[in-house]
């Protein structure tokens, strides 16, 4: 595991995650950027790459690299609009190539008021989907139903995964769903049906919030305030645009490419101590393990039942994930942020001395993973699949 310790996450920040923040995404983004730079002990003048939140363009030309640089009054060697694992890999490649040295990756979401409609990003105004009554839960229900048909995956396995992740969020004071649990498999199965087989508790929440992380070279990382978290490797693959093309299990065909990343990182699946699955729906929990090669295709259901608890082999989403912690539309960075916090020991939970970094490992109050050293930070399996392998210093 000694190789490729030349790019690191050195700063992270999440704003307060709220149901209705009454704040703009821009405001949340800027708080997150300043917070993450403070965490690293850096300033905007140290930054020469920008990924994430798409600043509204003053020029009327849409969001362009030039506009982002002009708005932030800072020259950039890299500008793009992704966050999370995909952005980490992009930043790491650019840093390794010497195009940039320090990249901020920022994102935020702030939704409109509730009026009986599902949130806008779940139902794009596309001519071959919107009129059918499609929305994201239904899209992933279609994927899950096919998986059940081909592989015998059960609703109990799906419910187990969702209950496990939600029970982590239950113990996280920063989670939207803090103390909204604990849930049993039966609770998840008996929740209101949204799109068969997905019940309400198998679907992500929706809320407001911002997030940012700072990525830099190994040399500069050593001079930052907190211990670096190394970006060893990862993989990404685009196949289609989610919510536009008909859902299928095609994403699992990217499995070989994902598995090769473990070789590049010099690690094995069995050494991964935390898996930050992109748990948008129950389907993500099951299929991501298959897609990353932790198990064979079709075995994700039985696999999660054996492996994803906080004291199991591959604990998943100890923050509560998209299901319980936060989903402001672009929760991708949270997957890495939680890994950084678990590595550092900065884990807020119900342990009496959690603020001092002392954890009881009593699972009724504690969500700290025991001594994690290696983690997988996943993006969604929604036509564009990505994940990064992160290591503790």
């Amino acid at each position, binding site marked *: 595991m000694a190789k490729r310790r030349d790019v690191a996450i050195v700063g992270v920040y999440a704003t307060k995650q709220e149901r209705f923040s009454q704040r703009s995404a821009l405001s949340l983004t800027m708080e997150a950027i300043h917070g993450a730079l403070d965490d690293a002990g850096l300033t905007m003048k140290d930054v020469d790459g920008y990924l994430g939140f798409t600043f509204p363009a003053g020029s009327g030309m849409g969001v362009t690299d030039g506009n982002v640089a002009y708005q932030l009054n800072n020259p950039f060697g890299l500008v793009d609009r992704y966050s999370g694992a995909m952005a980490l890999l992009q930043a790491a490649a650019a840093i390794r190539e010497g195009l940039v040295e320090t990249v901020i990756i920022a994102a935020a979401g702030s939704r409109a008021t509730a009026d009986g409609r599902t949130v806008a990003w779940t139902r794009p105004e596309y001519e071959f*989907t919107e009129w059918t*009554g499609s929305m994201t839960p239904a899209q992933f229900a279609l994927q899950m139903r096919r998986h059940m048909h081909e592989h015998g995956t059960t609703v109990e396995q799906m419910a187990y995964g969702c209950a496990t992740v939600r029970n982590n969020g239950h113990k996280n004071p920063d989670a939207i769903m803090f103390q909204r649990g604990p849930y049993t498999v039966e609770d998840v199965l008996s929740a209101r049906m949204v799109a068969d087989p997905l019940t309400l508790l198998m679907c992500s929440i929706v809320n407001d919030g911002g997030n940012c992380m700072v990525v830099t070279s190994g040399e500069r990382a050593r001079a930052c305030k907190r211990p670096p978290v190394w970006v060893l490797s990862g993989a990404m693959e685009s196949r289609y645009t989610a919510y536009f093309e*008909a859902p299928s299990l095609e994403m699992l065909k990217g499995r070989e490419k994902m598995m090769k990343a473990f070789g590049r990182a010099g690690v094995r699946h069995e050494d991964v101590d935390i898996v930050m699955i992109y748990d948008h729906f129950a389907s993500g929990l099951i299929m991501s393990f298959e897609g990353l090669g932790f198990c064979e295709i079709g075995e994700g259901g039985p696999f999660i039942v054996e492996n994803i608890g906080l004291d199991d082999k591959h604990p998943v989403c100890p923050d509560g994930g998209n299901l319980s912690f936060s989903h402001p539309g672009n929760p991708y960075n949270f997957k890495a942020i939680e890994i950084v916090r678990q590595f550092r020991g900065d884990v807020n939970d119900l342990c009496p001395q959690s603020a001092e970094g002392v954890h009881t490992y009593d699972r009724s109050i504690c969500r700290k993973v025991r001594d994690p050293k290696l983690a997988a930070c996943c993006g969604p399996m929604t036509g564009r699949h990505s994940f990064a392998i992160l290591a503790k210093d």
Partner: protein
Amino acid sequence: MAYDKPLPRPTPLSQPFWDGAREHKLLLQRCQSCGAYRFTPQALCRECYAEEYEWAETSGRGKVYSYTIVYRPQTLTFMDDVPYVLAVIELAEGPHMLSNVVGCAPSDVHIDMPVVVQFEDATDEITLYKFRPAE
């Protein structure tokens, strides 16, 4: 009552598809170089990248690749429709198509069920393509 649910807004690329639907024909782009069908509409053949294509009438037949029964309406205009069946139809010609299955109880829908297109004239301009169980 006027149709109040979201309506497709055709693009120059997709207009012939919707013109066909208005005549109750299910058309797909077919490559004039290699013969491959494609859906959703794309400028190039996904197999050989040829630009030339025709809008070919299909059998309108296929089978259910997957389905879901939706209980929570996408927007309030779908309130009267719940529970409705959203499905991916694998057309006999190959491409997959997101649509609704109508004409049977939602609980009767199953994977691999044979279906046939059923057109619904929503407005004077737009006819929607849905699927019902085949005889």
